[in-house]
């Protein structure tokens, strides 16, 4: 017996008796061939009392520098937003925490309604008419969109803006190999300042997209924090990718325009549904989910109506019960693996229901006005931060595009050493761009993210610390 099991000596005797075996061992001896039975104990540390496990995990936690321990400007996909306390409370309620997928709708109305509300919120946010109940996380959501595109139009090329998050591009490449699709990267305009630098190069985008292009991907804002001209990219993709010759039925095989969004920006930024986008995907972590060293979070997935029956993931739908009472069920399950098996629209099963609860509660908490106010605050602080930081000697804007909550700098100094210097002063100035992309053109790049938790005082502190670090570094290593 452990603290989680409950077989008393009497229980054991009665149970073995009922089964008709002499020992638990016999159950295994009669079922597991001797050749594959493990004849020794697992080589694992012995079990521990709860307090010791807690102490050990706390010791490990103490060896991490979390967003509580420094003034952090890290972003690039996951952001240190404030998660209101009521989300913890709700996510920890047994009723939400411990059931599984709502296969029995009569006793799962709570979870199903949460999905339905989540879908509604994501549709509103993206201005797209349909949403699933979430997928794993951001980059794989893009890969799921690629599969949907393949199922939809049968084309074989995926055109991807190089200004997307490198993890998204890498993930798309991994999956595309399985799909038998080719990934074509569209370069972006040189990132070293200039008005349109840092965004997808429209001409190259147009050129890359052809009548075998299944889907075209860009991010808004993109990895460098820059606001893309989404309308132009969408229109160009549709035009360039039209069937050749254009089909009589209006070319419903045209490439899907897939936009990777940062949901927190959608209070102020033109929504995907407002600029010709077919599918919006994105990392949902900013919506009420913790950083958790990268997961679990959730992947957003919304689309135009026509894609509904090819969407991946769970979808909750409204219906009535035998008494005519409103209720919710998992719907369109014929898309899914447990029904459709090898012809499913996705292999996803266990997904991120609890994280989606966090997201919808967060959106309700922010509310209709709040998401706009928050967006405006981020705009203002980001603008301020960018001005403050680019005023530092040896620090330049990597691009001058509009930004919402994150922007890229170029340092005239080694980024790694500058970051280490800042860290010693208790400030994490942001992400080393080149370390993440591996691109030569990104050398010197620093990606700075702003959230509502980073006050003006924090930004001023970053300015001072960064200025000192860059200066010290330039002094130490004369250019």
């Amino acid at each position, binding site marked *: 017996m452990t603290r989680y099991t409950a077989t008393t000596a009497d229980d054991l005797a009665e149970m073995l008796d009922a089964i008709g075996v002499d020992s638990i061992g016999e159950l295994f001896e009669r079922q597991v061939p001797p050749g594959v039975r493990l004849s020794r*104990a697992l080589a694992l540390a012995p079990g521990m009392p709860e307090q010791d496990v807690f102490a050990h995990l706390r010791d*490990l936690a103490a060896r991490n520098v979390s967003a509580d321990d420094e003034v952090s400007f*890290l972003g690039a996909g996951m952001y240190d937003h404030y998660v209101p306390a009521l989300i913890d409370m709700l996510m920890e309620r047994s009723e939400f925490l411990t059931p599984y997928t709502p296969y*029995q709708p*009569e006793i799962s109305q709570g979870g199903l309604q949460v999905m339905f509300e989540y879908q509604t919120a994501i549709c509103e946010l993206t201005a797209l008419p349909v949403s699933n109940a979430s997928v794993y996380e951001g980059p794989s959501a893009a890969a799921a969109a690629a599969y949907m595109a393949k199922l939809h139009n049968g084309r074989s090329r995926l055109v991807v803006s190089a200004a997307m998050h490198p*993890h998204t591009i890498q993930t798309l490449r991994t999956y595309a190999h399985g799909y038998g699709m080719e990934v074509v990267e569209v370069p972006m305009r040189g990132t070293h300042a200039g008005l349109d630098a840092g965004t997808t190069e429209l001409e190259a985008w147009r050129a890359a997209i052809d009548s075998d292009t299944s889907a075209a991907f860009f991010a808004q804002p993109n990895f460098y924090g820059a606001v893309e001209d989404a309308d132009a990219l969408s229109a160009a993709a549709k035009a360039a990718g039209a069937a050749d010759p254009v089909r009589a039925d209006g070319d419903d095989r045209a490439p899907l325009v897939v936009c990777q969004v940062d949901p927190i920006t959608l209070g102020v930024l033109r929504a995907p549904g407002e600029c010709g986008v077919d599918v919006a995907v994105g990392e949902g972590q900013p919506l009420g989910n913790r950083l958790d060293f990268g997961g679990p979070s959730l992947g957003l997935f919304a689309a135009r109506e026509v894609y*509904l029956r090819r969407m991946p993931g769970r979808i909750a739908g409204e219906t009535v019960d035998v008494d005519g009472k409103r209720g919710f069920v998992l719907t369109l399950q014929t898309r899914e693996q447990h029904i459709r098996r090898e012809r499913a629209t996705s292999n996803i099963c*266990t997904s991120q229901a609890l994280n989606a609860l966090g997201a919808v509660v967060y959106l309700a908490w922010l509310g209709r006005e709040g998401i706009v106010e928050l967006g405006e605050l981020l705009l203002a602080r980001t603008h301020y931060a960018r001005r403050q930081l680019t005023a530092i000697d040896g620090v330049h804007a990597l691009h001058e595009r509009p930004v919402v909550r994150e922007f890229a700098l170029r340092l005239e100094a080694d980024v790694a050493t500058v970051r280490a210097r800042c860290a010693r002063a208790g400030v994490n100035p942001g992400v080393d761009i080149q370390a993440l992309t591996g691109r030569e053109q990104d050398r010197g790049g620093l990606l700075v993210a702003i959230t509502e938790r980073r006050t003006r005082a924090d930004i001023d502190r970053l300015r001072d610390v960064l200025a000192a670090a860059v200066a010290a570094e330039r002094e130490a290593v004369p250019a």
Partner: protein
Amino acid sequence: MSTSMSPSSDTIFQKGGPGRRAFVCPELDVPAADAETLLPARFRRLEPARLPEVSEPEIVRHYVGISKRNFDLDSGFYPLGSCTMKHNPRLHERVAALPGHARLHPLQDPERAQGALQLMWNLQEALAEIAGLPHVSLQPSAGSHGELAGVMLTRAFHEDRGQRRHKVLTPDTAHGTNPATVTMAGLEVVKLATDAAGGIDVDDLRAKADADVACLMLTNPNTLGLFDQNIEQIAALVHGVGATLYYDGANLNAVIGISRPGDMGFDIVHFNLHKSFTQPHGGGGPGSGPIAVSERIAAFLPTPLVVRREVGAHGAENGASLSGARFDLDYGSAGGAGSRSIGRLRGFHGNYGCLVRAYAYIRSLGAEGLRDVSETAVLNANYLLARLAQLGVAEHLPLAYGELCMHEFVLSGGPMKRALQIQTLDLAKRLLDFGFHPPTVYFPLLVEEALMVEPTETETKETLDAFAEALAAILAEAAEQGPEVARGAPYTTPVRRLDEVAAAKRPVIRQALT
């Protein structure tokens, strides 16, 4: 608490009123700038998102209210076969919520995330030992993600040897994620028959195992709850044609410390940390699906991997290391694990929060405790099976295959349907009125009117007895009062049977807003 008290199905969008809010925006502490400077009009949103307008008390009451319309594991028995609905220790929530874990940014420098990396490394080691396979990637987000990784690894393995094998063998009892995954990975499913004992039909396997076969995907014990007696022969056959063996770890709860996939001959294993290792199911996730692989597969693993390096006095200097060890993210160093990686399957490093919980569980129980898990899981399943026989339930719901079972068993509802005119679905719905979550139903597909029962090790004998009696009572009720009672069930739930056909025909998947 009572039907009249149970909240309505109004959504959060149907509540609230103009201007209500829970959020108070932090003050604008930087100089104001004009709107156009901050974001030109052509990039600005046209129509506002019609999010709810509700006060904080309204949010709390709404979601607490609808939460009560869920059945959950903390409230009752949940013998959902294949899902391992075991107790979720609250300690795990506590440790996962520590700011040092929960508020750690995934792009924190490895030197400043040594605790997290050490935890991941320790977990990799433990999972490797449990699987009997040397290399582990913690990246996959759930079981099916692990499967995808696994099939892609297989593909990469063969491609690396210049082979384009396109078939993947899966038994007809396989979980739906197996075939779905195969297609997504660009390969083809070839079904294997099940033999009379409930295992792989070895003759069928022999017939189909050819040079086009990339892989055999198997879960063992399989979805019938049976340990394949021919596993060694199967492994030999598959390896004989140069294919790999993939182990779907959904049923690992039966064999932890008892039998290891690696020792059975599997090359790749996925774990469902949300099943065998207590990550709470969350209403359908999050989960986590780490994979363990053999030496020959290691080079293809997704990256980054977590590695441990011994460091000398120099590295230890900055205080970030423990006992001379330093942990790091490795993107595939030459020749080693991940060196010819299939690439990334997602952003960042996997569902770390789930890893924390699984690690806490493994440290809590240790080798002995984990073996007790499987022993008790198998004991409980066999006892419940025996108890059902004692109560005469087996007459209408016989065990589909075999006599004993591992951690779960599958009953056939066929005889019940014929004798009592109620289907497995009716039985399941009637169980709701008795306060139990029904077993998994209609899976695996090859069993008529299947009921798949997995009690798990954390249930008491009293609970198993009560469940057995409920099943018996429902059958007796049907025998005595006819099938209508069960067919009309449930009666006591927040809603009764729902019209799923209508839902799918004209899908309403979001709240209409005005």
